[in-house]
């Protein structure tokens, strides 16, 4: 149901990954978009190695943070994140490239994993793995199935429905075997016999590659999906692959599904089989005026300015720089930022496309209703948001909104639908939380 078809613009598709050289200094955020900031485990002046723990998870929704480089901790201070707010980060001056001894750097692929499920989850938690699709929810929390619930199927998200992005596509082409082993490890961790990989059918090379490797393991199936946005959203993906609909307000586990991104799966493979924590990821550097769009391996904490320099500089006509895809990514308030675990791309948008159009009145065309993947009525929610009718917004299921932006994209009057819906979500969310605390 619903969904839109934005121009794909996948300029960097099929470009082999390159490695970005080490910068002089990395700024590793202790908070990666969601959850509590972790607590710094190192102090100023300390010498750290690649892979060393520098931040310990603090609370339930929080993940460990590891050093992505070797060198000296120059300071622990606040640094700006992609939201423009300041959060604690560890600044490390890079000296050489000295890895921890227990990390297996050999190129050979380790296929066999003899660990027990709880040991796998423990290893994933220690490696600080978070969902690399963008939401950066700690993976070990997702793998710990709540009591009374049973997982039946593992769903792997290789849809990559955001325009421009190709980092997951490239990973599936280059690391097919590792991804499949990662999937088998995850299947063991959540005790399921079946896994489905969903890939949009504009990436048939990735489908064929994963199908080839999937034959070597039992219970893994690759399914090509219709190309549309937001195909890779958790609830849409579950419906497309299993036909089951996640009830309003419930989590995927309600219908027996656990969803993980392909990049997360690869990180799980590296953590469990190679003892390598999450310290690097692929990002796509792209844009209409970028001379050579491409996919790059970068260490977490690498400053954006360094990546832009290495990849040929910022195009002259840039009006906006976005971290992530054009639909759900964040326009950056400044370039003095560094790569966080959830940063999937640096996207340069030319100034001709960077501004919003003039807002006109709603013409009741109902395109937003037709295209909403969650079956909501965005025009109604926006009107209620403008008038601050929070209770009515709650009744109209504002909390089900996944903020995919399809309504704003399709609106012929350029109405700021998502802005008001997001406003409503945050207020209604606070309202619901307050109600719960008052009850108990």
């Amino acid at each position: 149901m619903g969904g839109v078809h934005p121009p794909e613009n996948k300029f960097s598709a099929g470009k082999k990954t390159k490695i970005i050289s080490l910068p002089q200094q990395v700024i590793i955020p202790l908070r990666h978009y969601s959850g509590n900031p972790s607590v710094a485990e190192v102090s100023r002046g300390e010498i750290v190695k690649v892979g060393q723990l520098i931040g310990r998870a603090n609370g339930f929704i929080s993940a460990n943070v590891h050093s992505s480089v070797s060198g000296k901790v120059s300071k622990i201070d606040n640094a700006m994140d992609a939201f423009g707010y300041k959060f604690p980060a560890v600044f490390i001056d890079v000296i050489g490239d000295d890895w921890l001894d227990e990390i297996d750097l050999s190129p050979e692929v380790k296929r066999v994993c003899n660990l027990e499920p709880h040991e796998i989850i423990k290893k994933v938690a220690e490696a600080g793995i978070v969902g690399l699709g963008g939401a950066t929810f700690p993976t070990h929390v997702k793998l710990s199935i709540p009591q009374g619930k049973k997982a039946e199927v593992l769903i792997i998200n290789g849809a990559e429905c955001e325009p421009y992005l190709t980092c997951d596509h490239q990973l599936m082409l280059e690391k097919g075997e590792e991804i499949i082993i990662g999937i088998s490890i995850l299947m063991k961790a959540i005790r399921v016999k079946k896994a489905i990989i969903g890939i949009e059918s504009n990436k048939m090379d990735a489908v064929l590659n994963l199908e080839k490797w999937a034959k070597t393991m039992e219970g893994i199936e690759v399914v090509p999906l219709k190309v549309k946005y937001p195909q890779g959203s958790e609830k849409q993906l579950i419906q497309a692959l299993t036909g089951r609909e996640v009830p309003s307000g419930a989590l995927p586990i309600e219908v027996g599904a656990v969803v993980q991104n392909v990049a997360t799966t690869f990180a799980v493979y590296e953590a469990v089989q190679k003892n390598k924590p999450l310290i690097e990821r692929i990002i796509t550097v792209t844009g209409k005026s970028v001379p050579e769009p491409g996919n790059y391996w970068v260490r977490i904490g690498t400053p954006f300015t360094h990546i832009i320099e290495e990849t040929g500089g910022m195009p002259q006509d840039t009006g906006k720089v976005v971290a992530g895809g054009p639909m759900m990514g964040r326009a950056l308030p400044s370039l003095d930022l560094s790569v966080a675990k959830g940063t999937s791309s640096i996207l340069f948008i030319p100034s001709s496309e960077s501004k919003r159009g003039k807002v006109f009145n709603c013409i009741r065309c109902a395109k937003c209703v037709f295209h909403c993947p969650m079956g909501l009525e965005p025009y109604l929610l926006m009107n209620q948001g403008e008038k601050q009718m929070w209770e009515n917004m709650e009744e109209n299921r504002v909390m089900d909104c996944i903020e995919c932006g399809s309504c704003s994209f399709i609106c012929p009057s350029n109405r700021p639908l998502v802005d008001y819906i997001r406003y409503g979500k945050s207020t209604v969310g606070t309202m619901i939380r307050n109600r719960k605390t008052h009850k108990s």
Partner: protein
Amino acid sequence: MNLILASVVSLGGIGALSAVILYFIAQKFHVEEDARIDEVEAVLPAANCGGCGFPGCRAFAAACVTADTLDNLSCPVGGTATMEKVADILGKKAAAVVPTIAVVRCGGTCEVREKTNSYDGVKSCTIVHNLYGGETGCSWGCLGLGDCEVSCTFDAIHINPETMLPEVDEDKCTACGACVKACPKNIIELRRKGPKSRRIYVNCVNKDKGAVNKKVCKVACIGCSKCFNVCPYEAIEMGNNLAYIDSEKCKLCRKCVEVCPTNAIVELNFPPRKTKIEEPSTTGTEK
């Protein structure tokens, strides 16, 4: 003719019968209400602003009548005069109310706080606040989109189009606190109005380190503690790289204003100084 007569008689009959029924229903379900509630409501300003913490003036009047003492009840709009009238009606004693006023604690005008990016979405501070840190390098300061202006029922706070900061009209402000609640950055504070409306306050809420916020705003409080050290009355508290002047302890001696290196401390409505080398900060956000 017959038709008209018939309809007048039948409708009149229904009306008379209904009146009788309603009379008895009203007798049966009559609610005894304290007559003083109406009297109290009559002396209240009828602004229904909610500044007292009650849904409106009548709810406040009812609360006044049922309460044992008036100590915790006060009408910010009417002030002491109104509360004395209320006390007279009820035969209770009104607590002394210190007049307060809304104060905008941000001096980041367009000149002293440069824009680092531009926002072209919905003009609402709360929406921007939920989305990101704002158009300038300071993620603590005023966003200038006027949620406070919208919230004010007394037309007392307006965004100045030159500075893009809100300005409070002292004559109109009733200290109802609506703007304090509306501001997502918690910049607006209700402070003592002070004798002759003279006030001194720290015009900044940035909790970043001094070296960081000095780069993004020229009038930011850098937490240097100079004012803290010079204050003879211990009215200044330091915390989170920020000074805060306690308006209860402050004796308005203006020593802190002189020592502040960034002009982050603002004095309002004072007569001009005789021996003053520099003009006081012109970044005050109020008239």
